[in-house]
């Protein structure tokens, strides 16, 4: 009788061991802590939350998302506590409903996996598929003159491609004056930047589809890299009119958080470049989206308006995708903001030369996060 119980327990233990092989093989990678550091840039006021994940063995990984509430952090920790960092895809599903924390946790877990393996994340993910990543600088300004100054600063910083805000539409539907202002803005910038500068026009989802198509048509021979968020993602039938009528490439996706959202646009021939946000989606989810885009010969150019940890994550993503084209990197307009970003993650991660960002080379995300700097810049959504 006792022998039977012992036998049964032995079998049960064996079954449990085989059901959790990752945990059994890699003691110490179980997640034990999740800590948010909300920060705010002093001048731009741009805010984001850096997240630290710690394992039982004491390894730490960092990620970033736009923000996280205390209850979201507590909920997320319940979902992932005790699970190995290597199960980052498993945990992505569990965190799908917890605000945007899933993106930050995904970056942090891959940071840990890379550190444990002593390899950059892009090697963990089958790369590098390239040795540097083309970089896109968003310009800031309301007038053509201010935008030219912004571009010249970005050129000094090493950028050759620029995201240009379209002139603000004065009313719901536009006429000739606005259309000419769009063309003049881009002509002014190209003239100031020279033949080897390239432009993405940012519609910021503020135009009606018809006006977006008009702008796309007058810009066909200008050769934009693409027209970004030309209109809000209203019905697909309305959106696809833009790319049916002309050949200016269009990009969408800074708010999209599912592969299905991109699949619909791709199926309808309504999109030429997918623009998932790195800090809304993390690394793994964008790899899945890019895999869908690949069969349409469409590239990923992740959107990014956050902090330097997400920049590092985006560069690892870039070096793990075959169909990456360009990475948007927020360009601080002031020295204070620039210094804060450099203090958090080191100055090398957002360094651009001749239009390309260098890949991080250390294990994990390849950055050392300075928690004192995080405390110093505390702010934003908690």
């Amino acid at each position, binding site marked *: 009788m006792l022998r039977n119980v012992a036998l049964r327990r032995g079998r049960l233990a064996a079954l449990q061991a085989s059901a959790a092989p990752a945990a059994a093989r890699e003691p110490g990678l179980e997640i034990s802590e999740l800590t948010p550091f909300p920060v705010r840039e002093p001048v731009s006021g741009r805010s984001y939350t850096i997240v630290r994940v710690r394992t039982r063995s004491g390894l730490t990984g960092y990620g970033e998302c736009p923000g996280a509430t205390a209850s979201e952090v507590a909920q997320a920790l319940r979902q992932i506590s005790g699970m190995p960092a290597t199960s980052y895809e498993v945990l992505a599903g569990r965190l799908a409903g917890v605000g945007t924390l899933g993106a930050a946790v995904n970056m942090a877990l891959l940071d840990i996996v890379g550190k444990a393996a002593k390899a950059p994340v892009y090697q963990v993910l089958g790369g590098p598929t*390239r040795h540097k*990543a083309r970089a896109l600088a968003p310009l800031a300004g309301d007038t053509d003159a201010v935008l030219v100054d912004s571009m010249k600063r970005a050129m000094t910083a090493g950028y050759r491609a620029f995201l240009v805000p379209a002139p603000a539409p004065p009313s719901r539907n536009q006429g000739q004056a606005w259309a000419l202002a769009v063309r003049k803005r881009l002509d002014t910038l190209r003239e100031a930047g020279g033949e080897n500068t390239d432009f993405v026009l940012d519609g910021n989802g503020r135009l009606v589809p018809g006006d977006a198509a008009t702008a796309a048509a007058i810009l066909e021979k200008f*050769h934009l*890299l693409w027209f970004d968020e030309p209109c809000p993602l209203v019905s697909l039938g309305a959106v696809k009119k833009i790319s049916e009528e002309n*050949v200016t490439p269009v990009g969408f996706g800074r708010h999209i958080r599912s592969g299905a959202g991109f699949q619909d646009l791709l199926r309808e021939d309504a999109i030429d*470049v997918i623009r998932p946000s790195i800090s809304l989606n993390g690394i793994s989810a964008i790899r899945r989206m890019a895999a869908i885009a690949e069969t349409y*010969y469409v590239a990923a150019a992740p959107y990014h308006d956050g902090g330097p940890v997400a920049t590092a994550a985006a560069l690892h993503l870039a070096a793990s995708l075959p169909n990456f084209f360009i990475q948007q990197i927020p360009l601080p307009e002031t020295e204070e903001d620039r210094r804060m970003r450099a203090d958090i993650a080191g100055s090398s991660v957002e360094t651009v030369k001749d239009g390309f960002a260098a890949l991080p080379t250390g294990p994990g995300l390849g950055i050392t996060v300075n928690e004192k700097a995080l405390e110093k810049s505390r702010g934003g959504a908690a």
Partner: protein
Amino acid sequence: MRRRDLFGGMAGALALGRRAHAACACMLEPAQAAAPVPASPFQDVGSKVRITGMKAMGVSLTPQSDRPYVFVKLETNQGLVGWGEATLEGKAAAAMACVNDFGQHIIGADPMQVEHLWQSMYVHSFYRAGPVMGSAISGIDQALWDLRGKILGMPVYKLLGGPFDARGVRGYYHAVAGSREQLLKLRDSAVAQGVSCFKTGIPGYYEWLERHAKIDRAVRQLAMAREALGPEIDIAVDFHAKPSATVASILVKELEPLNLLFVEEPCPPENVKAMARISRRSTTPIATGERLVASYGCRELIEMGVVDILQPDINHVGGITALWKVGAMADAAGISMAPHSCEGPIGGLATLHVDASMPNFLVQEVCSGVAPRAEDKIWQEWLGFPAMRMVNGRFPLSDKPGLGFDLSEDAFKKYPFAGTRAMARVFHEDGSVAEW
């Protein structure tokens, strides 16, 4: 006896081909004691000819060649041999192995049953043909047609009901010229030789989206080619699937004023809808097809109205049988045929027979220039005539039976198979993989 009647009919047909009559008469004698015909459900309706041997041979013109020719030779119990070509660039050994894998389908078979044997190779393989199997079937199919033509004493284009144009097959060379001066010279020699068409490649390699400077440079260079070659010469531009559909759409639209004969493979061929995005936003005629296998591979392109011109390669699509069927399907949709050909002389000569027999034939490629290449000289040594050289802008047709040439294996001794070599590997500025 029924069998005697059949032979009588065959002999009657044979009389049409004067030259081959003597050579073939022996084959149709009822008694073939030396080579007993195996029992077959087709024995009352088939011929007495049996395939007794099949060889796949690799021929490397240089040890570094990434596209050694793969030739297929079929031998028969009647002494006649048939030649075909199964060259597959970058995958020579695989194509040869695949030809040999079809040994059980072919050895002992009646070469007259080409349609039946093609179906058996395609259908009974279970896994549908990609380029390796497509090339193997192509080589065997061409050799079967060569045999059929020789047995019946007719050139293959007559078996196919042609020729539509007795003057021969209109062709184009590649324009190998960079500067305006070179292009002007090319125009002069083209006019002198009666050449009416050239193809050139689009300059550069293309990323998923493209920069203004690169698009602008490509458009300007092609406009210069049109200006220098003049309005009388047709120009085709091969994109070689280098751009994405997005970038190709821009380029193809901006090339509209050049009135090109066609733009070839504007984007990679796996996604028909992507190519449709390009073609529906421009009036520039779109051509594609060199990487497609069998008529099945072309169906969607045709029915979706994506292409204006189809360019199957007789060495990959499935030989004469498949190329002719693609042509028939394309004809019903008003689509023209401009078959690809960039491998050896056997496939080149085989494709001319199909070209001559298609009502919707446009123009035949040959990967050569107005000035002959080193290969052209070697081909002449092998075949005894200048294969794939145009006379007055056309490839002449031969009256000889089958594919129209005699060839000895000994011809290849100087060019032993040097193994498979990878094709070009091209990378972008950031080190990522580029289409070439």
